[in-house]
């Protein structure tokens, strides 16, 4: 589904943040992306989200060479990828329902056509009682689940999560992990960037370890 070949990236004239990245992310796979702070996890996620172009190397996304895709087509391709951030990035003036429905709204769909799906998904992530609530009154775990629901709303083929458990307590982290596993069981590939060893130890999954810009993969 995603293939990186000798990908390298440097910001400006600085040193290479990522070096010689060669790896695949297969369909329906589950993996952790880990490494110390500043190792380039977020940068690699941005590359996976097509939000950043590599300085060198080739990236194939869904069978297409990224360098050959015109910029106006990228949003269409990004819609096949869901992304979750540590800081949630929910819009404060929109309710949980409106935040989660945002991906469908930007696709120009009528509200009546997706209302039930959004409510169903919110129930699925355990926010069925918090539909009309603004993010300011949600707890950290609830915000994270709303962010995950938003990323899942349009049924992406791959979900990228950047430190999804960074702002929640261990029981909530466990519940979120179960949510990701459930999602993976339903067919979505999942990449979780984390440096929470305890979280990784709970699942026997592929580990991609970034150290000083180099990637080691443990199947």
């Amino acid at each position, binding site marked *: 589904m995603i293939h990186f070949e000798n990908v390298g990236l440097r*910001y400006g004239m600085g040193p290479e943040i990522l070096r010689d990245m060669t790896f695949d992310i297969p369909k329906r796979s589950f993996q952790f992306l880990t490494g110390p702070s500043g190792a380039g996890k977020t940068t690699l996620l941005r590359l996976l*989200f097509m939000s950043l172009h590599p300085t060198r190397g080739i990236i194939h996304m869904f069978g297409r060479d990224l360098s050959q895709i015109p910029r106006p087509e990228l949003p269409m391709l990004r819609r096949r990828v869901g992304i979750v951030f540590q800081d949630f990035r929910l819009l404060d003036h929109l309710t949980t329902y409106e935040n989660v429905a945002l991906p469908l709204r930007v696709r120009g769909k009528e509200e009546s056509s997706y209302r039930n799906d959004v409510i169903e998904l919110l129930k699925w992530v355990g926010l069925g009682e918090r539909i009309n609530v603004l993010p300011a009154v949600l707890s950290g775990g609830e915000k994270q689940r709303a962010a995950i629901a938003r990323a899942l709303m349009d049924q992406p083929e791959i979900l990228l999560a950047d430190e999804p458990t960074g702002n929640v307590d261990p029981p909530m982290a466990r519940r979120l992990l179960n949510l990701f596993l459930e999602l993976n069981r339903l067919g*979505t590939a999942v990449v979780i960037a984390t440096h929470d060893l305890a979280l990784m130890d709970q699942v026997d999954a592929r580990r991609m370890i970034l150290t000083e810009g180099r990637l080691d993969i443990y199947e």
Partner: protein
Amino acid sequence: MNELSRPKATKSARSQKPASEQQAQPSGQKQTRRVEMRVRPTAPILPPSNIQGNALMVVIAIMAFLACLTLGAVSMVRATASSWQSQISREITIQIKPDDGLDMDAALKKARDLALTFVGTREGTIMDESATARLLEPWLGTGLNLADLPVPRLVIVTIDEQNPPDFAGMRDLLKTEIPQAFLDDHRTWVDRLVSMAHTTVLIGMGVLVLVFTAMILTVIFATRGALSGNRHIVEVLHFVGAESTFVAGEFQKHFLKISIKGSAAGGALAAAMFALANMWQANSLATPESDQASALFGSFTIGMGGYLGIFATMIVIALLTTLTARFTVMRTIDEIDLIRSDPARSDGLSAS
């Protein structure tokens, strides 16, 4: 994008909650849940109002007011100039200078008859001695004996404005038949008035162009400010796969609302001002102030055409604002996208 290749399993499986979430749901309370299923009307993606938006609305209102005022003033001056022009060009004057051996009365009649032979003339009036004396009264006083003075006499000929006579032919014929006659078709005055009206219109257009330019620049700055103030929203829209046209559309809607409110307020204020001036003029007829104002500006009535012009200006301002916001957003988002995606131009702050 190949829709068929995308997983469809999620939706059907969602009807079952993940095991981890089963306990999180409170049991029962069906009534409460049914109430909560109702969602509020969808809020706009951009927050509806903020200080910047209000300030921009006031600026647009002022610009609309100035534009409508300029438009109204130009239409008023044009109407006044055209009424003067029409009054002057409705008549021509034949002036006959006294000369030795000239029978003035016969010459006056001959001049009138000659003029009336031309197509486009309606009637000719010879200004008799008493009328001529009245014309000269302010300078020469009463009790004037015209026979003692070499005072020219006048024939006033009214003409069909839509189908005026051949002035050059009339002038030549009069010169041949009565060498002392001189035809004044008031062309010099009419030309001056026309050129004054044109100059006024040009000045008005210049002011309108300046007002619109200032407004466009203000909207560009405001849009860039709004984009930078709502950068987090633009980023979220980017991450949920929004195209730049969608983001531009959201900002466009936001600015359309602001500009419609602003231009409506400015236009209404200008229309109210003209209406008030008109009422004041109507209520103070024959007072020195009103006479002076009428002499200078004519009537303050701008008529239905003027009010329609104000409405059209409001629409133009709203459209200009919206289009400016759209193009500015599209351009700025493309810039943001380019910088965001180019590691050579990124500062790497967002990387970890």
